[in-house]
């Protein structure tokens, strides 16, 4: 790996080795600004017969190179560095840095342990998820399983690594050692490679470390890092996270086919894909000082990322993986968990439930099918709304303030004793909602993407909506670790496609009653009017345009300034425009099916969701 002066970096190649495809993008400095210019794709080659991840990388890079008219790969099948400008008829060649992420082979799978499920175990889980791992199970002293059940479970799972936590510094030793005593005899086997020892990261009570070390024999490779929860009042996820990344590289990657080579090639450590996505969201939240929620809905799982102000005002990052919520492999589960009526409430015409069930099963066994009729599209988007909604609920429940903290009470709390462990996810404070994943990115009309986001996440107040154009957030996440300015610039300009802004009022009243009045003034858009409760309206406000909006909510409604308080904000336009939402929060659809259908039809017409889409087309 070479360290370069960021100012001298002009051409960046980034790849993301997914489980099926390896995506490469090229970022170039154009007129002093970093832009993503070209992208290429090739099948991932981790599995037999190739069994060398670099082959896929080279293929993808070659494709990008061809598109860009830049030679990126030399005859030896290696990426050319550093970049050279075109000279003497020769096309420009090479790149200044090459970076990569990886989720091939199922990503990073971890087992985490802690003492109390809601405290250190939750912190450990947060650290693992934040590092981009899939948490296979959480073992805790109070997980209501008997020791033999726990040992059995550890044996069954074949994690890439184990993260152990538990106890504050100076806290319990007994419980931590007890868990170690469960792991030691279970002798968990790593997923890849038979010849190496199970990596165990210990990030618990520092005073218990030596006892834990004594418990394990040579079959595990124990590393001790700073306590994840030195006191209950504070989380210290950084060291554990970094260690996870190191172990990921040293052990897990090193044992996956071809990765040893890939590690040598890259100029920054390879990161697990979701970890990189989290990083870029954190970067953007920090740079712009905003609260961000990102979602990536896939076939099997849905990842939700959020960066919100914590209780002390510092930004707190959370990631959850909803393993059973997805649009293909898990679609049946979504329908089962949400219930068919819940899915159907988003559909504005009659559907035969039997046919629907067939459709669901079809999607499950043929994950790559895309909707062929409007009906199918509407239904798929209805399912996605429910999947996103459920995933967000899970995320809210996980993204809480720390539990086990002593509360400092004042007399003002006499009548309202707030619990700790409240969710820090607050839709009113949410500024930017970023969508990615097939059903969202590839919806035929951007209005549909926006509508799905609003219906599922129910943002309150003023919220910008955006989608990840070609899923390059992972690449940018890694890039941020070496060149954050470049990452942010590309993120703003090329990665995000702004859909527009949603202005929604929190509160409920009877349909038809006044909800808020608005006044919009901008260069192209000048409107004023009133919104009745239950209405939703779309105003055109193009990409790059902004307008000033003043909202005067009716009594009991809140658009961010407090109940009934006037709010004046600058709003950003996008491919969809400005959406004023007076449907109320929480968003409740009529119970009666016919009534519900009529309401949803009205909404979809207001938002021009399915206008002119006789048949879906891909963009």
């Amino acid at each position, binding site marked *: 790996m070479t360290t370069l002066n960021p100012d001298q970096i002009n051409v960046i190649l980034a790849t993301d080795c997914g489980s099926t495809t390896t995506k490469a993008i090229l970022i170039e400095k154009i007129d002093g600004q970093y832009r993503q210019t070209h992208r290429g794709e090739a099948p991932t080659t981790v599995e037999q017969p190739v069994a060398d991840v670099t082959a896929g990388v080279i293929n993808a890079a070659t494709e990008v190179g061809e598109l860009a008219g830049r030679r990126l790969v030399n005859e030896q099948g290696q990426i050319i560095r550093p970049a050279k400008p075109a000279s003497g008829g020769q096309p420009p060649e090479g790149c200044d840095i090459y970076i990569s992420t990886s989720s091939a082979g199922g990503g990073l799978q971890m087992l985490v342990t802690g003492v109390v499920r809601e405290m250190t175990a939750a912190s450990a889980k947060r650290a693992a998820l934040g590092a981009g791992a899939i948490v296979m199970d959480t073992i805790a002293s109070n997980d209501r399983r008997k020791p033999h059940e726990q040992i059995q479970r550890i044996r069954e799972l074949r994690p890439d690594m184990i993260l152990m936590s538990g106890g504050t510094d100076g806290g319990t030793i007994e419980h931590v050692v007890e868990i170690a005593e469960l792991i030691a005899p279970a002798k968990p086997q790593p997923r890849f490679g038979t010849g190496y020892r199970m990596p165990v990261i210990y990030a618990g009570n520092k005073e218990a470390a030596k006892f834990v070390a004594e418990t394990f024999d040579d079959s595990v490779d124990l590393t001790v890092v700073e306590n994840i929860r030195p006191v209950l009042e504070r989380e210290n996820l950084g060291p554990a996270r970094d260690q996870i990344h190191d172990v990921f590289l040293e052990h897990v990657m090193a044992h996956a086919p071809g990765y040893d080579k890939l590690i040598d090639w890259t100029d920054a450590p390879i990161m697990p894909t979701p970890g990189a996505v989290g990083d870029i969201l954190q970067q953007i939240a920090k740079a712009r000082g905003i609260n961000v929620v990102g979602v990536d809905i896939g076939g099997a799982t849905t990842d939700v990322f959020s960066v919100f102000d914590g209780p002390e005002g510092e930004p707190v990052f959370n990631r959850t993986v909803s393993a059973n919520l997805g649009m293909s492999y898990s679609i049946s589960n979504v329908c089962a968990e949400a219930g068919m009526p819940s899915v159907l409430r988003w559909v504005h015409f009659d559907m035969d439930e039997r046919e629907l069930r067939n459709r669901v099963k079809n999607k499950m066994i043929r994950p790559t099918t895309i909707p062929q009729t409007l009906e199918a599209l509407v239904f798929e988007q209805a399912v996605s709304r429910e999947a996103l909604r459920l995933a967000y609920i899970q995320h809210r429940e996980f993204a809480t303030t720390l539990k086990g903290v002593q509360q400092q*009470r*004042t*007399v*003002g*709390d*006499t009548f309202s004793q707030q619990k700790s462990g409240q969710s820090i996810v607050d839709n009113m404070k949410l500024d930017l909602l970023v969508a990615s994943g097939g059903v969202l990115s590839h919806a035929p009309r951007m209005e549909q993407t926006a509508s799905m986001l609003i219906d599922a996440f129910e943002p309150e107040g003023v919220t910008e909506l955006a989608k990840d154009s070609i899923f390059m957030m992972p690449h940018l996440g890694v890039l941020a670790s070496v060149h954050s300015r470049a990452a942010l610039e590309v993120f703003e300009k090329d990665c995000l496609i702004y859909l527009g802004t949603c202005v929604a009022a929190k509160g409920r009243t009877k349909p038809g009653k006044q909800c808020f009045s608005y006044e919009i003034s901008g260069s192209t858009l000048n409107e004023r009017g009133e919104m009745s409760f239950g209405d939703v309206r779309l105003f055109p406000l193009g990409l790059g345009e902004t307008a000033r909006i003043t909202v005067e909510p009716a009594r009991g409604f809140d658009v961010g300034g407090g109940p009934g308080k006037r709010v004046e904000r600058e709003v950003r336009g996008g491919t969809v425009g400005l959406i004023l939402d007076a449907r109320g929060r929480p968003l409740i659809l009529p119970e009666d099916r016919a009534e519900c259908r009529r309401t949803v039809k009205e909404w979809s017409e207001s938002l021009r969701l399915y206008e002119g889409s006789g048949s879906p087309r891909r963009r």
Partner: protein
Amino acid sequence: MKRTVPIVIAAATGFVLIVSSFIPLTEEWGSAAMQWFNILAAIAFVLGGSNLLRMNLQKISDRRLGWGYAAVTLVAFLVTLFVGLFKVGVQPTESFPTYAWAAPYNQEGSFLWWLFEYMYKPLQATMFSLLAFFIASAAFRAFRAKNPEAIALLATAFIVLMGRTYVGGLMREFLPERLEWLSFDAMTNYIMSVFNLAGMRAITIGIALGVASTSLKVLLGVDRSYLGAGDD
């Protein structure tokens, strides 16, 4: 069985006592039950005392954290017991001059009296006066004007604190008679006899109903958690 018998006893006694309020025939039974309880409690005291003795002896012999305190406890316990039980230093009274122990155990000048006067009393007073210090630190920490309720409480606290001192009454000197109700002591009296009173009554009614329903649950054997969780 282990749980059924106590429940039956509790239910029987309890219902009889409720009924005894209304049926003259059973009126005496309440005090009989109370006497039984006192006897039981007295016997249990032996249990408690011996447990205290054992625990502290154990602490000392194990040299556990703070065993010095255990030693002090033990010595104090035994000395007090001895001095009180054997009426050490008690002088005969006028009425019974020939019986050495006729006077009460805490007769002035007796050992126990000395203990009481010069150890127990100052110690108790010290503990009680600690409250003043703790109230100060609690007030400093907890009295924050965070929301409207807190502001109301703060204002009330200010008035009552002032009203309970010399300053509260002093205000009257400067107020015309018509406005005397504005003085802190008058406002304090008003707050105490109107707002405080109303609030207290509401709380008391709620508590009374809570007591009634809790008692009933215990009597009906619905709530058995005091007999330990789990099944019979």
